[in-house]
């Protein structure tokens, strides 16, 4: 299927009118074609305007309360917030009422349109997220509560740890106040085309993926993708995987650090 054929279907896909076979063809094509992907995003944003053409009506106030209760169940509330939260939950309907129906509608428009405008400047956004990542990394590394563990090669675990220049090694920096972790690594072997390094949190059960990267000159500074709160990590490791990453590590840890 070529780009021209796909572009004829993009609009139908964006409004949900494509037949299943057409939809599949679009998805497969845009996964590998940045030009058509970009066109699809434009169509999808235009389709989003249709939602705004409906009259905006606020949901009943009880729904907000129900939702917050359902979300809060089973959550360990942080001490600093628990007082505020229980103080506020009774005030929800009143706050929603004071906010007003028209206010709710106006706000939805304002934020939606702002997002659309931002979306038009996609490149700027990508750049911004890169800057945010770099900022997060610096934030963690310079945090007053930063903790560091050494990640060592597991290839030679029957021998005394070699400190030779060619041995891969790394450090995992973590800050509770930032809620983020970063891997700095060194001497990673070059990868063939089609392979990446993937970071993982080890857990009591299966490792949890935390993002992929390609090293530059064997070094890396990788901001770990956040881990969901109800899993507690027992360590952090790197493995070699096919591009795009894997569901589970396919080989052994290249470097690894257990958490105490």
């Amino acid at each position, binding site marked *: 299927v070529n780009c021209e054929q796909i572009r004829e279907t993009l609009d139908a896909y964006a*409004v949900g009118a494509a037949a299943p076979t057409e939809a599949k063809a679009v998805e497969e094509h845009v996964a590998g074609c940045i030009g058509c992907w970009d066109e699809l995003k434009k169509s999808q944003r235009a389709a989003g*305007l*249709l939602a705004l053409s409906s009259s905006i009506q606020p949901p009943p106030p009880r729904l907000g309360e129900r939702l917050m209760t359902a979300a809060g169940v089973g*959550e360990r509330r942080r001490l600093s917030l628990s007082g505020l939260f229980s103080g506020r939950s009774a005030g929800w309907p009143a706050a929603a009422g004071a906010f007003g129906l028209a206010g709710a509608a106006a706000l939805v428009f304002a934020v939606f349109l702002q*997002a659309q405008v931002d979306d038009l400047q996609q490149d700027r956004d990508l750049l911004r997220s890169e800057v945010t990542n770099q900022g997060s990394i610096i934030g963690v590394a310079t945090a007053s509560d930063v903790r560091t563990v050494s990640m060592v090669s597991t290839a030679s675990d029957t021998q005394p740890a070699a400190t030779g220049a060619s041995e891969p090694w790394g450090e995992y920096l973590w800050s509770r106040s930032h809620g983020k972790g970063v891997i700095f690594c060194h001497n990673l072997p070059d990868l063939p085309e089609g392979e990446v390094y993937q970071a993982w949190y080890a857990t009591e059960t299966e490792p949890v993926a935390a993002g992929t990267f390609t090293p530059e000159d064997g070094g890396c500074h990788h901001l770990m993708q956040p881990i969901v709160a109800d899993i507690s990590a027992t360590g952090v490791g790197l493995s070699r995987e096919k591009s795009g990453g894997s569901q589970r590590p396919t080989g052994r840890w290249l470097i690894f650090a257990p958490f105490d």
Partner: protein
Amino acid sequence: MTDVSQQEAFYKALDDEELMERLFHRDLEAFRALYERYGSLVYSTCLRIVRDAQIAEDMVQEIFLRIWRKPESYLPQRGRFVTWLTSVTRNRAVDEIRSRNRRFRHETASPEEQEREVPAAERMDPALTAELSDQRRLILAALEEIPREQREVIELAYFGGFTQQEISERLSQPLGTVKTRIRLGMQKLRGALTPEFKLEER
């Protein structure tokens, strides 16, 4: 300022993506802020599609709880949160009507019907209506420029959940005609997303 209003102001100042990131750390206040921002958009879209206030309410709860439990289902690198949320909402609502008996499937409202059912809420407050209407006028104007037969097929697809083939059968029009109408109509809608909207940026 009380602690509560300071906290509220803090969360209001965060953008959608920042709020989403906080969900990974189980921040209930961030979740509340997201709901305050988008609860009415999600609810209105569901209501327009399923035409039943109780079902729409349940779906809003389901959609938001899913976001709370699986924030990773939104991938920031694939676009803005609100675009994703709109599409998740529409798809979820359409799944709902598809799974129900087809006799519950409805026509999308005619513009006259919409005119009648719309702005009751917005008419209540002229000052806010003014702010709202400037922006909304652009969208409605763009939609109005789309010829009725093109708009009809687009709305049948988006709000009615029909495929091109189903629309063609429903309207007794050749499939090719339906496809062309969708493309032409969407071209005009895309036009609404260019320069004038940039002028709206503060």
